[in-house]
């Protein structure tokens, strides 16, 4: 039976590694929400001296690619230093899984984001980060690189769908080069709101479509 998922994805989906919680973790993060249908929580145990990830666990509420990516990303991160683990990309995770269907990239990016957020959480807790800075167009664009164009499975920026980004008085306006009636318009809007809306100085995210 031809499944859209590779055998490695199915193996990790059936038997996900590193599932669960760490009691009293050194850092944790949850990305996503029940509303968007995908959530990944990542818990870290980090050696204070070497900054090496001694243990990592995850929990997932989501589809098969979400669960499988949580599994592979934690496998990749275990034993690495936080600096090394920060460099793990979605592409690496996807390659390690033997590839993911384009339409599922948005669900799998979440596990990578969650790992990075957990590392950031660790850095914040241990005074390893500088002061937070005001959100810029560049910062928003960076985040938009994590919003997928479900048609091709590449991000909105790379597929040139972002026509305009502007920020004024805490309102971020993003113009997407698609008709509002597009099959994935609502999905893209939700994803952008989720990726940008929680930044500390952003009050509102307005997503507009060109037609």
């Amino acid at each position: 039976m031809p499944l859209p998922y590779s055998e490695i994805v199915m193996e990790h989906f059936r038997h996900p590694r590193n599932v669960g919680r760490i009691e009293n973790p050194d850092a944790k993060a949850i990305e996503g929400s029940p509303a968007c249908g995908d959530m990944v929580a990542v818990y870290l145990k980090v050696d204070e001296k070497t900054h090496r990830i001694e243990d990592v666990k995850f929990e997932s509420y989501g589809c098969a690619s979400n669960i499988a990516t949580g599994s592979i990303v934690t496998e990749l991160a275990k034993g690495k230093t936080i600096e090394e683990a920060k460099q793990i990309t979605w592409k690496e995770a996807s390659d390690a899984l033997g590839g993911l269907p384009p339409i599922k990239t948005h669900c799998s990016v979440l596990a990578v984001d969650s790992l990075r957020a957990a590392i950031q959480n660790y850095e914040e807790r241990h005074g390893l980060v500088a002061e937070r800075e005001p959100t810029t167009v560049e910062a928003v664009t960076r985040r938009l690189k994590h919003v997928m164009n479900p048609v091709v499975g590449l991000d909105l920026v790379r597929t040139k769908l972002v026509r305009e980004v502007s920020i004024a008085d805490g309102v971020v306006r993003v113009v997407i080069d698609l008709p509002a009636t597009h099959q994935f318009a609502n999905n893209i809007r939700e994803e952008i709101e989720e990726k940008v809306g929680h930044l500390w100085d952003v009050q509102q995210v307005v997503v507009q479509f060109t037609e």
Partner: protein
Amino acid sequence: MLERFVYLDNAAATRLDERVLEAMKPYFFDIYAVATSQFGYSLGIDARDALEQARATIARRLGAKAEEVIFTSGSTESSNMAIKGVALALAEKKGRHIVTTPIEDFPVLHSARSLERQGFAVTYVRVDESGRVDLEHLRQAITPQTALVSIQAANQEIGTTQDLTAVAAICRERGVLLHVDATHSFPRLPLDVHQIGVDLATLSAHTIHGPRGVGALYIRAGTPIRKFMDGGFQEFDLRPGVEDIAGAVGFAKAVELITPEETERLRAMRDRLIGRLLQVPYTRLNGHPEARLPQNANLSFRFVEGESLLLHLDMRGFAVSTGSACFSRSLEASHVILGIGGDHERAHGSVRFTFGRFNQESDVDAVAEAVAEVVSDLRRISPLGKDAEREQLVSEANRRL
């Protein structure tokens, strides 16, 4: 390979009944001519007779006259034709307004949206949390400019059936035409179009073990409707194209094979399944407990996502459907669950089980057990509901004391 695959997605498509295939066969190999007029050659007259008999069979089940039924390529075409055809025919005479519900299936919903883009106003009548139409709101929504009301007989996802007699009475009283999408109820649930007062009805063969790509539209005699496609004069000059005689014959045979006894058998299986699944903690029934399709069960399992549930069930040999965004082609959560006031989590965790002729009674317990196991496995790895689950365990322990 699995011993037996249990198919519980009969709302999406059904397995063809061999008896339907047998009835269709002669029209592929022996009587393969087009339906000719009465002055044509005999093979064509035989084809025409078969087509008209099929039409009469379906009309009888509706309490309609044979010439009020035209064959189409399925529910999508039927609903498109009914809604756009009537709206355009009445745009000048009545007005550019139609009324429907937010939980209709896509052919109706997207036909309405298409009309909106052409400058029509559409009022979406409120439904309650079980999916039943707010009749008072329907009454208020109809204006002198309303060209058409389109309300489904039964919902495709949650199975809720509407009080069509009451809906039709309101439409009649306000002098507006009523279209009913009966794709999922016909002919398991009675629909007497003349007695109730339905002006158009969408029907399909694919939900009743008939052939795919075959449907029908009932159009009450005298209903103003614009021809949808340009072509020949087939189907009373309303639906051009060479008639699918085999398809029509298969549809009629499929209709004949639906009996009240069978429907009761499906109802019993459905009731048993709902009863078993409601024993799974944090589970709720979607749709109306009584006013629902006899073959439909739809439940939401909290803290789990439907696509994962579906895949795990597939690996165990069960085919079901889910309202989760991950599963949908537009990556959007079920508009039906959201339309009845459910939140995204309830939509993502919703699973539809629909029974058909080829299900066995033993399927019910088998799928119920599999669902309970899979839900429990997925909840174990879910970040949601952990504390709630602990509370549940504590309260269960307390009850035992």
